[in-house]
Every structure is written in structure tokens, then in C-alpha cells.
């Protein structure tokens, strides 16, 4: 049973490109650091989707193992990043990136 017969891989590449661009757009557009963080997650997921698509179309399981590792790294990254953001919020009272541009004091 091959359900993938009717979906060309170009569609997956296009979908990943669109999702990645939306992530970049969000990072550039928003000022709330948490939303920017979520947009970074969106970009990671676009790349994950592309890796899984190529892994399936080439019948190679290594791409899916890579996605597994990316998920592990993303989980650790989110934990550390949100801890940093909570600390910034505790010290400055805001997560606006415009007030985060003075790292030196």
C-alpha cells in the first residue's frame, strides 16, 4: 500500500519553505521575546518536516533519527531559553526585546 504515490516531494519542499518563511517573518516582526521563541520553534519544525519527507522518499531511516535528535535538542533549548526569559522578566519586568539591548549593564 503506497499512499505517497500521488504527492510529489516538491509540495513538501514548498510547504517547508512557506513555514520557514513564516517563522523568519515572525522573528522579524514581533517584539515579544516569547513569540520570537515560538517562531524559532516553527522554523525548527519546518526543517524537521523536510527531513522526514526526504527520509521517507529516499527510504532511508537516518533522516528520521536526525529529526529525533533535533527534537531532543529543541526540548533542552526551550527549557534553558524559557529559564533565561523568566530571569530577564524578573530583573527588568518585561520581555520586550527593545529593552534587552543593553547587555552591558
Amino acid at each position, binding site marked *: 500500500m503506497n499512499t505517497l504515490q500521488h504527492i510529489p516531494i516538491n509540495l513538501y519542499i514548498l510547504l517547508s519553505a512557506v513555514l520557514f518563511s513564516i517563522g523568519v517573518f515572525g522573528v*522579524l*516582526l514581533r517584539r515579544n521575546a516569547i513569540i520570537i521563541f515560538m517562531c524559532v520553534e516553527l522554523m525548527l519544525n519546518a526543517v524537521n518536516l523536510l527531513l522526514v519527507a526526504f527520509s521517507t522518499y529516499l527510504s532511508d531511516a537516518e533522516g528520521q533519527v536526525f529529526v529525533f535528535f533535533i527534537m531532543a535538542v529543541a526540548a533542552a533549548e526551550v527549557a534553558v531559553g524559557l529559564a533565561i526569559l523568566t530571569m530577564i522578566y524578573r530583573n527588568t519586568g518585561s520581555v520586550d526585546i527593545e529593552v534587552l539591548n543593553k547587555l552591558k549593564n
Partner: protein
Amino acid sequence: MTIYLFYFLSFIAIISALLVVVSKNPVNSVLFLIMTFFAIAGHYVLLNAQFLAAVHVIVYAGAIMVLFLYVIMMMNFNKEAEPSKTTLSQFIAVIAGGILLITLVGAVRVFDVRFATTDNVHTAIGTVENLGKVLFSKFLFPFEISSLLFLTAMVGVVLLGKKNTY
């Protein structure tokens, strides 16, 4: 039939990803991001990657998004606290994002992907059995290293979260 499913899931993913970016309330952003993740999990099922679909739902929609919601709940910001960027910055953001999209799509159009055919697709590579075999034979060392990464992250988060460390 499958192609309609693909279009449906892609539509949900793209629309909710856009809503993540444009919605004013951060809680709404988190909920739309969860929707995007579920659509991507649907794509994984469509691509015969059942294990990754399950892990994606558990890790992203389950763990990471709950973490985001907790942090937003603790920060307790009101909606008008975030002033939007200047019109010039927004304009530049739209232009830059659009140019990136056009570049990527143009690159895909001239890129030859005929090597990735669906003729001899193995439908069983995404199963737990097959991925486990690859993970614990060829990628055993990175797998163990990732446990070290988690330990480091845990120690770092506890250190950052304590009140009087600095």
C-alpha cells in the same frame, strides 16, 4: 484522496502558523502553535513516520507548549503591554520574509528532485522497530551524548531559576 488530505493539513498548518505570528495575545499564539504542531504530526502520519508523529505530539504539543503556557501564565502580561514595532520595521520585516520565500521557492523550482521518487518507497522505515534498530546501532554514541545534553540543560535551568545566585 491522499493529495486532498495533504492540502487540508498544509492549509491548517500555514493558516495557524500565520495566526501565531499576527495574534496579539501570547496565549492565542501558543494555542495556534499547538494547532500547527498537530497539523505537522498529521503530515508525519501521511509520510509513514508513525513513531515520529507520536513523539512530536508528546514532546512538542505536550511538553514544550505546556512550558510556554506556564511561563506566559507566570509573567502575567496584559495585552497592551507589547507596543508594536514602527511601521518602517514592519514593512522591512514583510519585505524580508517575502524575499526569503521567493528565493526558496525559486530555488525549489529549478532544483531537480527526481532522485526522490516514490517508486520503491519502503513503508516500514518509520516504525518503532526499524528506528530503534538504527538508533541503537549506528547512532548509539550521539544518543548517549544527548543524555549528557539533557543533564547539562537541567543543571543550567535550576541554576538560572534560583533567585539569589547573582
